[in-house]
């Protein structure tokens, strides 16, 4: 009776073993067809299932308008009301609050850190009862349309790294800007305008520079680079045909040029050549699309009153807000505004008053304008600076005059539309406004959330460069679910 067992054992020869093994290998081989990256191949730029130009899932927002307040507006004068600072006006910041956290070189050697409460009054507005300063009368009327995040924090403490960090997700330069990532991830909506436009303006306050590295495409294809509109009468320079050349002539010239470029591309295969051909073609279509968008003369008086009369003066923040709305309405994926002059190290009350006059009405008008066109639900508007300002005074200190240094540990921004909960105040700082006590939102988290609203998974939007897959959120970023409607 033991014989069959013995037989079996005896008859399992090496040949059988090998043929069994080959079956095993065969199944592995067939299986490997379905695991494309198993043998190290498939490391194409998209990675993890990304089809460039298509969202990962149904988006809530289609477009972004980022109203960047460059120089870092003080949260204490605008949104984060801290009566304790007024009560302790002039007293030293308790060491227990700061806890030895780093300061900038500008105040690190200061002997004391006198607390400075806002000299501006606050009141509660809207159904949400959000507190807004008297400096922002127009913003206070739209509180029920916006989501105020009081618990932003960032890694950088100086302007350039902080700004670069906000725009590219890294403090060092040359990573792709947020707008470039979106252009790469979602493609352009309107084929006749760039997918990523940049508009600059400056107020009279202490300013900080903005550089083209902030809207760079980094290692992405150069069609994703931000296009800076100039503040003059012609927002895009050299777009018009030179004298004596008509559109048909231009067309013939471009066709010839494209044929030449195509020939070079066939020979060398450099994708930058294809990008160049596309850019020439887009520029040709922009010749009609841009003047149509930039023409403010047809705007009705109600629009001028809504954005403020400055909106007809090219190069002002109000004009840029109006232009941003028109570009966004025409399908520009990402419009990036920068308004300079918020760096209130000294004479902050005077400077911030001027800055608020520049931006308050137009920012609020932009939200209202999108809303009344039925576009607010598909457009995400973001307002904020690169970090916040200290609760203590920098430099000369009097009852009605003070300055504030950089403060990256807690500051305020607001968002509107694009599937973000309206009428919400999210996050909280301590009574000194120094540290965050609830719902902190890191810059990476904000990036992840912005991408999510546009239908992109921030962990899947990658680009392989120099052997590494890069993301806007690097290796961090968590969705801020609390603000998503």
């Amino acid at each position: 009776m033991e014989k069959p067992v013995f037989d079996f054992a005896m008859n399992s020869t090496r040949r059988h073993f090998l043929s069994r093994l080959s079956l095993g290998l065969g199944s592995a081989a067939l299986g490997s067809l379905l695991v494309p990256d198993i043998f190290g191949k498939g490391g194409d730029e998209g990675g993890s299932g990304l089809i460039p130009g298509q969202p990962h899932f149904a988006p809530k927002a289609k477009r972004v308008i980022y109203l960047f307040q460059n120089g870092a507006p003080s949260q204490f004068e605008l949104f984060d009301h801290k009566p304790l600072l007024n009560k302790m006006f002039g007293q030293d910041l308790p060491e227990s609050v700061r806890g030895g956290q780093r300061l900038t070189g500008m105040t690190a050697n200061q002997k004391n850190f006198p607390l400075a409460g806002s000299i501006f009054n606050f009141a509660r507005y809207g159904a949400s009862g959000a507190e807004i300063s008297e400096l922002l009368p127009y913003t206070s009327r739209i509180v029920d349309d916006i989501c105020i995040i009081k618990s932003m924090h960032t890694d950088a403490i100086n302007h350039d790294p902080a700004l670069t960090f906000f725009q590219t997700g890294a403090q060092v330069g040359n990573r792709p800007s947020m707008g470039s990532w979106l252009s790469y991830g979602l493609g352009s909506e309107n084929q006749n305008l760039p997918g990523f436009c940049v508009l600059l303006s400056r107020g009279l306050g202490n300013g900080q520079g903005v550089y083209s590295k902030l809207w760079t495409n980094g290692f992405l294809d150069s069609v994703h680079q931000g296009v800076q509109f100039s503040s003059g009468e012609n927002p895009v320079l050299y777009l018009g045909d030179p004298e004596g050349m008509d559109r048909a002539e231009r067309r013939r010239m471009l066709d010839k040029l494209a044929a030449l470029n195509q020939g070079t591309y066939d020979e060398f295969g450099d994708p930058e050549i294809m990008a160049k051909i596309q850019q020439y073609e887009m520029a040709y279509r922009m010749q009609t699309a841009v003047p149509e968008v930039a023409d403010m003369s047809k705007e009705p008086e109600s629009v001028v009153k809504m954005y403020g009369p400055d909106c007809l003066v090219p190069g002002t923040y109000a004009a840029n807000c109006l232009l941003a709305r028109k570009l966004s309405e025409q399908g520009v994926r990402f419009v990036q505004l920068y308004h300079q002059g918020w760096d209130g190290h000294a004479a902050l009350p005077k400077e911030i008053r001027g800055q608020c006059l520049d931006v308050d009405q137009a920012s609020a008008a932009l939200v209202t304008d999108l809303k009344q066109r039925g576009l607010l639900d598909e457009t995400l508007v973001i307002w904020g600076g690169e970090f916040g300002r200290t609760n203590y005074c920098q430099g000369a200190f009097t009852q009605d005059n003070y300055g504030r240094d950089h403060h990256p540990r807690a500051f305020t921004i607001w968002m509107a539309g694009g599937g973000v909960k309206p009428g919400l105040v999210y996050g909280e700082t301590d009574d000194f406004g120094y540290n965050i006590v609830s719902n902190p939102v890191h810059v990476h988290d904000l990036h992840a959330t912005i991408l999510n609203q546009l239908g992109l998974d921030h962990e899947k939007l990658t680009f392989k460069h120099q052997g590494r897959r890069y993301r806007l959120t690097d290796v961090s970023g968590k969705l801020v679910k609390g603000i998503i409607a």
Partner: protein
Amino acid sequence: MRRFFADWKGVLYNTAFFLNGLLVFFLVFEDRLVTPGWMYLVGRFHPLVLHFPLVVLLLFAGWVIVVEKPGSNRWHAGLADTLLLTGTLTAAVAALSGFVLSQEDGYEADAIFFHKWLGIGVSLGSLAWYAIPVRRTPWNFSAKAVAVVFILVTMAAGHLGGNLTHGNDFLIPAAGEKARVALEDAQVYRDLVQPVLQQKCYPCHNADKAKGGLQMHTRELLAKGGENGIPWDTTQADLGLLLRRVHLPANDKKHMPPRGKAQLTEDEVVLLTAWIKSGSGFDGKVSELPRESPLYSYAQAVLRTGSAEDMYAFKAADASRVAALNTNYRIVKPLAPESPALVVNFYNRAAFKNSDISDLLPVGDQVISMDLSKMPVGDEDLKTIARFSRLRKLLLNFTDIKGNTLSELKKLPFLKELALSGTAVTATHLKTLEEIPSLRDVYLWSTPLSADEFAHLKKSKKIRYESGFRSDTVVIALNAPTVENQEQILTGGTRIRLSHRIPGAEIRYNLDGTVPDSAVSAVYSGPIAISQNTKLVARAFRAGWLGSAPVERFFIKANYRADSVHLISPPDAKFKGKGGKTLSDGIRSITLPNSGDWLGYRDTDFQSDLFFRKPVKVSSVTLSMLQNLNRFIFPPARLEVWGGANPDSLALLKVIRPAMPKKMVPGNEDFLLEAGFEPRLLGCIRVIAKPVGKLPAWHPKKGEKGWVFVDEVIIN
């Protein structure tokens, strides 16, 4: 002994072996697997195939249990062998197809977990049973024990599979149908926390089975905790026992839920954390939560009524057809990959033809949103638009719609948002909108509707009418006029030019430094000439607006501008301005030392020659200078003006020793320093300004050298 491929059994056995190998491979690389479309077809066969192994294997296991000895009347070794082999093969096919099916979306990971592993267990187990010797002695007790276990595992796998298809309560119906709770009525504990505990914790912590002495199925017992103490403690950083155990590494012995049991999802951990943080109350209502609370977000996600309208359960249009409809001015895109819903945007009014809409009708059943804003779309086009029966959102802002045919839109059962801002629609036409069943939002900014008509519309309970910004009641101030001149020093016949951007704005100005009003001050009608140093103040006025803030500008009259300038002494490297031409460009720099437009001197005197091609009659030379006492920028200690026909024949014309400040004055200030003399004809003027050698005694840095800052030399 049969050869492996020599008979049909060998073929079956080898196939089964191969399929199991494939299965194991898939399991190892599951998270990297990319299933191609056709594979899903294999998956769909799972419900068909799975019944074969179920029956056949149970038959075989039954035989093993009842069989006695070889040769007994229950001895059918050959048949049994065939049974097990067919069972093994079909089990492998079932497991593999089941695995593929599980890759499709729509199955809860928790629900599928045990079914999957049991199914795979059955497949591998039966293969092993066929391959290893124990099956050769089925009359042994060990073989019978294996058979019993096998029957239990197979039945369990089958039962769980049944649950997946038919629902948990298919076999043993729940006591009562649990109604879905509306968000407004939901309670935090009862409807959010308890269901999670019930699913993930109750199985081991209930009245019958209280692991660690902890029972969680009633509120009191849960709050009391088990033998290790109470489950939460908000005074601790990790919020107490329960969350500590949850956060332990998955392979830690004390990790909860234990290894192999269904784990808490990330959202569920967030939920429990937030609930415990909030004081672990049992009676709180969801509607009372702050909206930014994670509990509220969780409730929204879990309790949100699955609105059918956002599920696009219709067939997708042919992708190549969609692609063909895209032009530079019409973008047709799916809402998301795999989504059948299409979104359409139109651009460029000039390129638009009415047929651009009807061209889309072949994909008309898929279009859910259309943006025709600013296109020349008229009332008759609404008839075409009304044929896109699945439209949810329709934007017609600033089109040529008058509203006569709005009733056509009643054919759109899903239409939710309609934007008509900037069109000529009237209140009469809008009445018909109430009959569109799903319509919620209508945008009517910038239409001819009166405030009364809006007030009437806003009474609607069904539709929210957005009136937008109404400018007729808003009165705000105009912006100040623009002074076009960049230069503040007006030479020769240069005039002051003013402008304003808003059409119809009126500019009024005074030249005596007083603020103009809208009644008597001069109205600007063309460039203004000045004959002396002048402070201009201008404002803008317009009907319906408040007058603007004044704009002020100080203009300095200069008779001559030097034809060329030669800087004899170089300025300090940090304050080089734009070199010599800084002095004669007519532009006064802003009052900031580092504006880049100032020439600064400290270690050497400021010395410069100004040349005229033709000699001019000069009676005064004025320096435009900067003072910032904090930064040691002082008036010069001594100013000398020399003049002559050329640099070799200069005579000293004037020396000035300006008064020095007597105390600290903070901030930047610009000032003019004038040296007048008898008029004479000059071809060359040399200006020398000496910085203060020693700062005065009241200055914090007394005794140090001072600076002089110059940006313009004005010649009259």
